[in-house]
């Protein structure tokens, strides 16, 4: 596909100044927060290079220079080198896995003298570009199974490598691509089950199989009721199912040798009843019931296998999920989240004032300048400050989605949405984890967390999107030009 771009005289005349301003505000907040988090009151030389915030400022300078250069490059370049970048990224990830440096248990870093880079931060850009290119290829159809498998493969390779690197947190970012896929028209019957099964996976730790099975039966039957508006049949089905299995339980229960639990009887009865339901659906020509039945059977299968799946996770991941769900309350496991919640919670409406946060000062919050940087904002600027920072990020995300919607071809649109998805995922996970909404995953808050490679990578990512936007005409396409 070849596009003709109607460039205006000045490139910067077309730059989305709102987005750029949002970006600049966010990185400034970031430097301020890093300064606060690493502030030592009686430091002798506050401009020494060893200080985190000075390093952060240097990295910000580099990011701005790189960003400006990227704005000057032609967008078609990215389309051309997308696969090449992807291949390089995969090689780099593998190289990291083999020769990398281990930080916090994850072998995900490369070290060049004083500079440490997390490979996945940069690989994300390549993956985003490659996905955008794949999805803008001729013949790609979101509704086609073959196309979806290609996308899945593209994402699964780096995900597998990050798992081996013990850095699944960074890899899981790729899951956020589903947001972009939805926008691109992914069948909603594929979106809902994925989210549903993920939720079910977590719930299966909290409730006993019997409770979960009964809940599943009720949820599915009731949604069936709403979908087909056939109240009578649903009620009859429920009554027959529970009455029948209870009767069988009472009869079989009298035989002591069998010692069958109610759960297994209910499970067997329900699965058998599915045949009847399918026959009914065939006769009544209600096709949505098939999907329901399939989803139900998968859900029922997941419940007992979730423990097996759980065991695939690394112990620290298991602990984080257990802690989050409240299954264990070992204080040494949820210490980070507890301290972070206390720091943020003690901020109140307006916070304790800049550089006044006692938790940050005293190092009570671990990783206070990297993954838990949001605590600094929450404690020192309170609710108002936190919401303000959150609003800035969300506004930038919405702006990127807006850019995507304004793109004239799939490549740019998909790319912008991927960037938005990644930022959204990082924000949700990072902020959610500091306030105890989401299990702990070691991923940074974009533009704000301390870390040069993270800042540079996020900057490159958004500047490419800015460049795509700047190089697209705002007018409606004039097809006559082709």
């Amino acid at each position, binding site marked *: 596909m070849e596009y003709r771009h109607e460039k205006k005289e000045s490139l910067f005349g077309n730059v989305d100044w709102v987005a750029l301003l949002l970006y600049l505000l966010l990185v400034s907040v970031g430097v301020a927060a890093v300064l606060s988090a690493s502030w030592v009151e009686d430091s002798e030389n506050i401009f020494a290079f060893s200080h985190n915030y000075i390093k952060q400022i240097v990295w910000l300078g580099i990011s701005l220079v790189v960003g400006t250069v990227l704005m000057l490059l032609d967008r078609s370049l990215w389309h051309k080198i997308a696969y090449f970048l992807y291949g390089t990224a995969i090689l780099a990830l593998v190289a990291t896995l083999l020769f990398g440096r281990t930080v916090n248990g994850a072998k995900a870093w490369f070290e060049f003298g004083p500079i440490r880079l997390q490979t996945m931060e940069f690989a994300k850009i390549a993956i985003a570009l490659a996905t955008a290119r794949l999805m803008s290829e001729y013949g790609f159809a979101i509704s086609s199974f073959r196309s979806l498998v290609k996308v899945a493969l593209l994402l699964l390779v780096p995900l597998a490598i990050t798992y081996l690197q013990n850095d699944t947190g960074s890899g899981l970012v790729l899951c956020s691509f589903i947001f972009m896929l939805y926008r691109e028209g992914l069948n909603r019957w594929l979106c809902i089950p994925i989210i549903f099964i993920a939720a079910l996976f977590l719930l299966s730790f909290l409730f006993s199989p019997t409770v979960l099975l009964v809940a599943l039966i009720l949820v599915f039957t009731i949604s069936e009721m709403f979908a087909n508006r056939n109240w009578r049949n649903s009620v009859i089905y429920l009554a027959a199912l529970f009455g029948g299995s209870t009767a069988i339980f009472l009869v079989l229960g009298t035989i002591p040798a069998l010692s069958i639990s109610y759960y297994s009887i209910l499970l067997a009865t329900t699965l058998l009843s599915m045949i009847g339901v399918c026959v009914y659906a065939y006769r009544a020509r209600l096709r949505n019931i098939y999907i329901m039945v399939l989803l139900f059977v998968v859900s029922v299968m997941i419940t007992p296998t979730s423990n097996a799946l759980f065991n695939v996770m690394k112990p620290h991941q298991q602990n984080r999920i257990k802690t989050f769900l409240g299954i264990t309350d070992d204080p040494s496991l949820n210490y980070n989240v507890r301290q972070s919640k206390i720091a943020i*919670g003690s901020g*109140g409406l307006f916070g304790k004032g800049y550089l006044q946060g*006692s*938790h940050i000062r005293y190092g*009570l919050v671990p990783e206070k300048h990297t993954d838990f940087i949001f605590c600094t904002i929450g404690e020192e600027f309170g609710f108002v400050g936190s919401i303000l920072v959150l609003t800035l990020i969300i506004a930038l995300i919405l702006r990127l989605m807006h850019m995507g919607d304004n793109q004239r071809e799939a490549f740019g649109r998909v790319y912008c949405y991927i960037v938005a998805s990644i930022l959204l995922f990082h*924000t949700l996970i990072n902020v959610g984890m500091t306030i*105890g909404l989401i299990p702990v995953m070691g991923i940074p808050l974009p533009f704000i967390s301390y870390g040069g490679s993270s800042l540079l990578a996020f900057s490159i990512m958004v500047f490419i999107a800015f460049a795509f936007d700047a190089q697209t005409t705002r007018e409606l396409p004039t097809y006559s030009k082709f």
Partner: protein
Amino acid sequence: MGREGLSPRAFVARVIVAIIFGALALRLGYIQLVDDRYNELSDNNYLRNVVIYPPRGEIYDRNGELLAQNRLCYDVSIVRKDMPKYGFDTTRVSELVGMSREALIKKIRQSPYRRESRLTRYPISVEQKLLLDEMNIGGFYTSQRTVRQYPRKIGGNLLGSINEVSKAQIERDDSYSSGDYIGMEGLELAYESVLRGEKGIVLQDIYAPQAERNTILKMPVAGKSIVCTIDAELQQLAEELMQDKVGAVVAIEPSTGEILTMVSAPTFNPDELVIGRERGNNYAREIKNPRMPLWNRAVKSRYPPGSTFKVVTGLIGMQEGVLRPHYQYSCNKGYHLGGEHIGCHEHPSPLGLHYAIATSCNAYFCYVFRNILENKREYAIAKDGFEAWRDYVLSFGFGRKLDSDFLSEGAGYVPTREFYDKRYRKSWNALTLLSLSIGQGELGCTPLQMANLAAIVANRGYYYIPHIVREIEGQDSLDTRFYQKQFTKVDAKHFDAVVEGMWRGVNRDGTCQGAYLKGLDVCGKTGTAQNSKGKDHSTFISFAPRNNPKIAIAVYVEHGGWGAEMAVPIASLIEEKYLTDTIKRPHLVEYVKGHKIAYPMYK
């Protein structure tokens, strides 16, 4: 895709973003604005309550000399989080805190990571603390404590000791908490509430312990000092005299009830039981000692009073009207009637009360005792007479606690009618109990009760409750019970005859001429208590001078033989020391000190 309207998918995507923003904002609002819990937790996170221990009240003797004072020391605690990552000189630290290096490392490994925990069970000295500070290792904190120090090293059982409070004690009294010290036994226990003071609490910023940000929530209040009634020099002399013997010495000022000296022998060096590394071993050694040095014999042990009790029998007889001082009874080497036989030593016969007390005639008091119990005009049967006799004895402070300020005071024992009914299946009479008349049989008295008897005779009929404390800092007076005269049921007029007898015993031709002190008019009564275990117990009660007495004393030496053999010289030397402030018989001191009694029963 145009600008003029969003596709439905793009719209839903924005709704999802909005929902995520909303969820985060709601949660933020909840923990920052609604839930107050976090503010409080926040303070607890970096502020800690530091307990400031008050110095314990000091103990002075009656002349203002220090008996128990405080020594500064330090508790060491650690916070593993603040320790240097690269390690430190564990060998040197282990020397300073007095642990083995292995124990130190183990203790540090097992300590909580962020919470402060105590490193050593025992405090370290000031020198060790300064050396530890000099090393300047992170994660080590010291806090001031005080432990006892005893300049004279006397009065072990009298003063008691201090130990760390036990779990059971904390459960009983929640004003104590783990790590506090509490008095054990003696004065330290009895006046614990006065001596302990009040702990202070300082709210300290963990990360700036020396800063002015520390707020004092409660000032510590130092324990109040106590002036006790003990005369330190007298106490020291008495302890020296009692060395290598088992028994007790109690001396009381009759006009006030103040205890001048209280020795329970064998005693122990109170410095050995000061909180510290050696306390456990020393305590175990003392507790295993068969002579039981930790048992305060002076207030707890039940001894047969022996002949000293004849004084009481005589007084009751006179009050009951069955005895006049001039009544004479004959003594034919004892008292013989029916199957009963109570022997006596060689002395002129017949004899009156004065001489009977002075020579300690057994037969005389057997007659008196029978006359009391078999007084047909008053009592129908001897058992009623016995009950009347018992009431008299109790009024002298026997068979019950004197209510002194020793919490562990024993009651002694005076048998009851029911006791004999049970023992003799109700068939008993005055003859059955005859040995009570001379202080044998089932009678049990504490040395404190015996000294109190001496004080009663000295006062001619009353006593003040014996007590150990003279003055408490900041208090005008003691408990009112110590200022009230406790009268016996015997009128004052009857006492003169007994005093005369006790005076003769020392100054004329009695059993205790060894207690004679020129010009001091010492009065005394010896006792030789038979016992089933071995040699007789040697005992002596005495007071001096005869008129306006200054000191009343009881000495009890287990298996010391005749009363005159051991108890008399000891009491006499103490009286001499107290009344004249010198000792003119150093050879006697040496003799008594060097006199070792073998105690095969304490093995």
